[in-house]
């Protein structure tokens, strides 16, 4: 590390309507340094990175690069200055090829504005070789797995001589082998003198890779530590403001009768030969990588997809679930993965959203009964502790946590026996998260059978009575709450257990 930092942020502030996203954050990153950035969802990491990548403008503060003050108004300007962001949400054009995506916005040209295909394919070929990718430059990106798409995203950094590289959760969908390649690349970049910002939730990665760690909390700078002089506990404390054992189970349950019994369920190449049971009063957690087939199982149970094999018994009766309407009438509800796209009508008010799935019961003949709707809303507002000024509030204006409670309320109103929650706390602040976890346990206590699908291990461990690990469309292992540990679960969902079994 040299004395002059490559990149300095001083007193950066950024507000959105109603939210102070970044509040007086200062940060410096030196050449050849890997600087980890941590914080809960909503702590302001993504906003800060978007400011660095030229996608947002800070309201206050300044950015200096190599000692000179810079203003980056667009991603192109940031790129020209050598600041590159590897996006967490895949920022790829599915219809175009790998090579075209890697050089998007910067395609090599020949005369007359033609694309120089030869140069393009040669360069991309080299990059893919360096990344040990098993696909060719002319593959259509839409045909790649999510993990390979992530590698394409990463390959983009290698096209420029970047001064600052920002990795935003790059390993979220990678296998272990791919992770090792990625870490090698990061070390290469570091040796070449690049300044690297590494955002991740995974402590092990951060402690393996980083030189220093900066923690954000509620948009504020919570602390910067040298990696060698700290430990996971201290970092966690900075992150959430208190010491907390995130993996502790809340309580044990007393399961009742079998509500759902799935045998050998398959759906094309999405998932195969899946068998499990869920009892009344029990929470079963599904853990796995994106694309492991968890959401697809939920969609099949909810009648959105037609299974290609297997049987489903619901409350003892064999059923063939033909549609969501059929699922609802049986007593199955699905709180979907994406609240804003699949769960809510954002322009409608709280009351209208909560009664959306039970609208028939709200009517006298063709006429809706406003008072009956309001009564349903009040019931769930109280029970779920939804914080809103009143039922007239448009749900688009509520916080993520309260929006999620509205969705849960909507499905509880259908009086289900089985409640499936897909990523119930995605994008929700840590306070509401704990509340929703408590709520899930409370619902289990009152007799609901519950499936929770989550990509966050602490969440799965915290709320589940049993945990099922999935990998590539198959159930790998099932654990009871007593026997499950982080290690076992990681092995189950990354295919390590499978490899071991195969070599044994």
């Amino acid at each position, binding site marked *: 590390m040299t004395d002059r930092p490559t990149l300095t942020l001083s007193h950066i502030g950024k507000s959105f309507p109603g939210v102070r996203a970044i509040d007086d954050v200062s940060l410096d990153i030196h050449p050849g340094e890997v600087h980890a950035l941590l914080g809960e969802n909503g702590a302001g990491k993504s906003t800060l990175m978007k400011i660095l*990548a030229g996608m947002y403008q800070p309201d206050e503060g300044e950015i200096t690069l190599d000692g000179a003050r810079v203003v980056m108004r*667009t991603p*192109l300007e940031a790129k020209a200055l050598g600041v590159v962001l590897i996006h967490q949400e895949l920022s*790829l*054009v*599915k219809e175009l090829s790998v090579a075209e995506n890697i050089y*998007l916005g910067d395609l090599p040209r020949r005369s007359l504005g033609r694309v120089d295909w030869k140069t393009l394919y040669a360069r991309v070929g080299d990059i893919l070789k360096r990344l040990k990718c098993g696909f060719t430059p002319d593959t259509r990106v839409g045909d790649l797995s999510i993990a390979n798409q992530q590698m394409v995203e990463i390959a983009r950094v290698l096209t420029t001589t970047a001064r600052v590289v920002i990795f935003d959760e790059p390993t979220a969908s990678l296998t272990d082998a791919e992770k090792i390649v990625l870490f090698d690349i990061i070390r290469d970049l570091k040796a070449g003198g690049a300044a690297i910002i590494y955002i991740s939730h995974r402590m092990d990665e951060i402690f393996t890779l980083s030189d220093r760690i900066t923690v954000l909390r509620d948009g504020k700078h919570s602390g910067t530590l040298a990696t060698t002089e700290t430990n996971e506990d201290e970092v966690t404390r900075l992150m959430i403001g208190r010491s907390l054992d995130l993996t502790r189970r809340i309580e044990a349950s007393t399961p009742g009768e079998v509500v759902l019994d799935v045998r050998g369920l398959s759906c094309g190449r999405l998932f195969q030969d899946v068998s499990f049971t869920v009892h009344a009063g029990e929470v079963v957690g599904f853990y796995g990588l994106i694309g492991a087939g968890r959401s697809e199982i939920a969609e099949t149970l909810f009648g959105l*997809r037609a299974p290609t094999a297997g049987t489903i018994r619901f409350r003892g009766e064999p059923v063939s679930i*033909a549609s969501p309407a059929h699922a609802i009438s049986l007593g199955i509800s699905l709180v979907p993965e994406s609240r804003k796209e699949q769960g809510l009508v954002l322009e409608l008010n709280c009351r209208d959203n909560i009664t959306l799935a039970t609208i028939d019961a709200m009517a006298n003949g063709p006429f809706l009964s406003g008072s009956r709707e309001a009564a349903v809303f009040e019931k769930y507002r109280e029970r779920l502790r939804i914080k809103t000024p009143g039922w007239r509030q448009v749900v688009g204006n509520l916080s993520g946590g309260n929006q999620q409670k509205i969705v849960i309320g909507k499905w509880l109103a259908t009086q289900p026996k089985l409640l499936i929650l897909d990523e119930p706390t995605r994008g929700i602040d840590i306070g509401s998260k704990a509340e929703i976890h408590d709520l899930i346990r409370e619902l289990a206590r009152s007799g609901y059978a519950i499936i929770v699908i989550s990509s966050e291990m602490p969440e799965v461990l915290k709320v589940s009575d049993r945990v099922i690990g999935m990998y590539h469309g198959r159930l790998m292992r099932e654990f009871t709450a007593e026997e499950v540990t982080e290690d076992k679960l990681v092995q189950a969902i990354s295919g390590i257990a499978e490899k071991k079994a195969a070599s044994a």
Partner: protein
Amino acid sequence: MNRTLRWLSRNPIWGFILLIFVFFSLANPFFFDLQNFENILVQTSTIGLIALGMTLVMINGNIDLSVGGIVALSASLVVDIQGWEVFAGWGDWQLVPAVAAALLAGVALGALNGLIVWWTGVDAFIVTLGAMLGIRGLVFVYTKEQSFYAANFAFSDFGSSNIGPLPTLAVVFLVCALLVHWLLSQTVHGRNTYAVGGNRQAAVNAGIRIGPHMMVNFIILGFLAALAGMTLASQMGASTPTLGQDYELWVITAVVLGGTKLTGGAGNIVGTLGGVLAIGILRNGMNLMQVPAFYVLVILGVILIAVLFLDRQLNRKGQEGYRL
């Protein structure tokens, strides 16, 4: 053989063309005739020219409803200006300011559409819906609801002339098709057209300036629509203020038949060429068989839906298992 089949499954419209071509050849003795093929090409060229530009705009994820208005305006301009007294002594050179003004009007209106979409962020459908009404109004104001007649005979002759064995208008269309195909498949601008329509956020993140980019495509479409207006006026030797009415619908039908997605990101000129030819052959063939005009519309509507359904069945990768 396998490659041909795969190509056809990606461009089902060409399979359909083959089908109707064989059908009309067998059903009507006047269909399979070189002169008739030339007719089809000329009849197709007007819609076809606009469809080339519309393909770019639609791959971008936009749409332009104002093309019919541009056709009428450019036709009126080119026919009117060549008769101006100022240019009376210019001989055939009087066509130069007329053609320039018509093309310029198309380019300017395309640029205006693009600018409004860029600066206001209002959906292109709304912007060009307004432009469609506005431009048509402008045409009525300009022409005082009158038809114009071409003063220069060379202008009218152009529409029925030949280059070698081929009608000039067909050649103009095919050359433009080649140029746009090349633009879309070989150039950086063409790649960016797919990127902007396929994933707008990704394009922004990659540093593509999508505002100016989309404007360029609107300008190309404006230019081609103006060109189409002129070829139409040349064929008739006149212009009427209602010229080009409903053209936006025919053009969009042809482009969609050719496999371009309404949501953007996918499509190509080979498909669009198929789309306009399919419509041209159907209209020509049914005309020869003396199917009443209104039935032709009904049949075309049914075929549009049928072909797109077929396309969905053939290309539903990744959608497996989802019930609707």
